């Protein structure tokens, strides 16, 4: 598929966080803080990123912990605002991050599908129309599917993750953000997830994912971006980038 336009464009993107060395979350400490300056530090997590992700590309973000991968994903998901620089995101975004954060244990599976679907920005009609599809994708075994109208607290962790994944992939986003969650469910379900992601790729959708599993990176992405201390260290076709990343981290 030919890239029609750019899904994500970052220009000199910077993001800093203010870190208080002694956590304050109270009025008392805030008042004390106002009186005497408490050690407060600004941590620059992303330091001037220039990145263009064309539509339809699958890009892997790799790098050590704390290199800014997840922060970049959150900026693309519009959860964070950049400290400076620009970020432009074209199209709808579905974050596949920490699946099921919006689930409510007292609601049934079906009710949670409606809720989580609308949290992810899916029109409610669309959620209802695709309800069967979502359930079928999450639970292929009839004994699991039969639980769909019982409260979510009866579900196992694996089942909740499967349901979360299923809802997220059925939102049909233009851009799918995946943060280390491909280790969902059992092997059969994982295979299904990968097939679904391949289908996404074939549909010409953009996928940006973070992974420490280099086998997954090599298998799924065409491009890898190696982030190091908030800057792009290497950017290019997957194989050479992953090779040099691996050799450096082993060396």
């Amino acid at each position: 598929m030919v890239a029609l336009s750019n899904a994500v464009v970052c220009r000199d993107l910077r993001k800093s966080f203010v870190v208080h060395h002694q956590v304050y979350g109270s009025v008392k400490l805030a008042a004390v803080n106002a009186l005497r300056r408490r050690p407060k530090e600004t941590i620059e997590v992303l330091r001037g990123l220039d990145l263009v992700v064309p539509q339809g590309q699958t890009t892997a973000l790799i790098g050590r912990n704390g290199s800014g991968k997840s922060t970049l994903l959150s900026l693309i998901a519009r959860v964070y605002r950049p400290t400076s620089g620009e970020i432009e995101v074209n199209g709808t975004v579905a974050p596949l991050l920490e699946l099921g954060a919006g689930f409510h244990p007292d609601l049934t599976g079906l009710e949670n599908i409606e809720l989580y679907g609308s949290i992810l920005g899916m029109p409610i009609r669309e959620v209802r129309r695709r309800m069967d599809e979502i359930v079928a994708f999450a639970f292929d075994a009839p004994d699991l599917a039969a639980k769909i109208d019982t409260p979510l607290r009866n579900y196992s962790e694996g089942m909740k993750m499967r349901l979360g994944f299923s809802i997220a992939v059925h939102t049909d986003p233009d851009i799918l953000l995946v943060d280390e969650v491909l280790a969902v469910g059992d092997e059969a379900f994982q295979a299904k997830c990968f097939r679904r992601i391949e289908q996404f790729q074939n549909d010409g959708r953009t996928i940006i994912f973070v992974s420490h599993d280099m086998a997954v990176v090599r298998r799924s992405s065409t491009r890898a971006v190696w982030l190091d201390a908030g800057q792009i260290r290497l950017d290019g076709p997957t194989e050479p980038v992953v090779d040099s990343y691996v050799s450096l981290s082993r060396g």
Partner: protein
Amino acid sequence: MTRDLRELWRFRELLWQLVRRDLKVRYKNSRLGFFWSIAPPLMQVACITFVFKYAGFAARFTSYSAYVLVAIIPWTFFLTAVLDASQSILLMYGVIKKVYLPREVVPLSSAIANFIHFLLSWAIFFVYLVAYVRAPILPTIIWFPYLVLVQFVLVVGVSLLVSCLNVFYEDIKYITSVLLNLLFFLLPIMYVVEQVYYSPVFAAPGHGWLRALYMYNPMAALINGYRKCLLQSPDPSAIGGRVSLPLDPANMLITGLLSVAILVGCYAYFNSRKWQFVERP
């Protein structure tokens, strides 16, 4: 702000889903369900009526319980909505950290869910008023929808403020609950406004500002408004021979304007901080 409102409108379906979630979840695991929304205020009414009717000033009131109930319903709405709102964003923190959505849908949905309970409580009140007290419906009832709307505006404003502050300072929920406890006594709930209005302290020369402060406190004004528009004035003998105060349209309009101002101010503040929620220290 118009851009924020447009974005909010785009997410109206999510807002409604969150309201539904709140309504469904609240009494999901209790057998008596909605009963728990009305039982505590009714018990409060019974208790206050007992104390003041048989042990206090209210002996000469006819159906004093109606006066209390008419005040307890808006008070309960204000109390539960503000307390729920103070927690609302932290309860959704896991979602907010991961997904883009206009942050105001969270406190707003909690306020709307409480508003629906509020309307249901009024339905019960009207049954009680007509079937049990057998009181006539007064023409001043035309003010009632206006008052309900103004209170909603006020509650949304305060909810936005409290929910936002509590993200950064978690003491806010404790401070709020203490202040609400005090407010209960400052509002004309257990007593009628005439007792304050004609009290020697408030009537003393030079104390007009104190009286105005009391009368124009939006919640006090609303409770008075509900009382005056739904119930007949108490007999002068019940309030020390004084003339009972009529419904004051000017006060009602000022309360409306004040509530809108509170909403606009609190929403502007909320918007200025809502993208920092995920970065709280």
